[in-house]
């Protein structure tokens, strides 16, 4: 396991723990806005349209992935964790699978649920040739525990990688305050 993957693991665990540190309320019907948009045929040359489609795909995958990774509830942990695995790829996915039992134990011990809602997402960098991109996502995360629900604004930087099944999350981290 190389260093970036360790960071990815740390990020995943950190997301759970950070989420657990807040408190929260389930927002029914919460969906990433980009994921529910009616696809619009971009204008321009065929090459331009291809780039535009790639851009929209990576932003949607990044935004939806960030939402999924900030959504995990005590009552539905296994389904939520399945969703994490469904949007992840590569060694991030391997790590999720390897650490599922550990993460489950930690999360349920904390007893705090979170629901993420995407406020804005944008591609920072797209490398279509290599099939990778970096996407910035700002979210509102609602946290629920024994205490009153709380909301917090969260910003994450995700990397997405092209797979045979479309773009998937290969890394996620909080944007640090530097």
């Amino acid at each position, binding site marked *: 396991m190389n260093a970036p993957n360790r960071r990815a693991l740390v990020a995943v665990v950190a997301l759970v723990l950070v989420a657990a540190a807040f408190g929260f309320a389930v927002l029914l019907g919460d969906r990433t806005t980009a994921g529910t948009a009616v696809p619009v045929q*971009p204008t321009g040359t065929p090459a331009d349209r291809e780039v535009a489609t790639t851009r929209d795909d990576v932003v949607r995958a990044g935004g939806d992935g960030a939402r999924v990774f900030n959504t995990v509830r005590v009552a539905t942990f296994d389904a939520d964790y399945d969703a994490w695995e469904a949007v992840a790829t590569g060694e991030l996915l391997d790590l999720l699978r390897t650490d599922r039992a550990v993460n489950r134990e930690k999360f349920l011990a904390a007893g705090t649920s979170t629901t993420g809602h995407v406020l804005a997402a944008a591609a920072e960098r797209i490398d279509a040739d290599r099939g990778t991109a970096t996407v*910035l996502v700002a979210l509102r995360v609602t946290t629920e525990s024994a205490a009153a629900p709380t909301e917090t604004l969260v910003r994450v930087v995700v990397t997405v990688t092209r797979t045979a099944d479309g773009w998937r999350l290969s890394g996620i981290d909080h944007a640090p305050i530097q």
Partner: protein
Amino acid sequence: MGNRGLSKAGIVLALVLGGLPLTVLGADAARQPDNRAHVDRAETAQAQTRAVAITEALFSYSSADLPAQRAEVADLITGDLVTQYAELLGQAEEGVRGQQVAFTSKVTHSGVRLLDPGKAEVLLFLTQSSTRPGEAPQSAGAQFVLTLVRGGSGWQQAKGSAIDLLGAR
């Protein structure tokens, strides 16, 4: 930095940013058919660079010299943002009354989500550090979407026209 410091810094940032009215932006702005973000790489990079420069200029200033700050940013903003920013500085002035505070802002990440012939929207992650005499600097993060209006000769002369604080209060 202890928790108290972070909390204090957060309050400072809230004071600085809290006065801006939200601009309602289409949630699906990125899915417009004429969106050239990342399609036209050169213009995307220019808009991104300009957005970063404007943002850092808007949110870096000294409480001791707000008139100078108003003059410095006058050429960087237009439209609704002129009023919004005046309110913001007014609030900041109120918030730091009698104190000497220097704010320095650095954009840590930025991404263009919309680029059309006249307008761009850029998502920015910002770190703002505040320094008071005799105290350690404190930092806080913020995130917002800055709308740019293209200049007559290109994105290098673009001005900021709106800020969407994405629900920050």
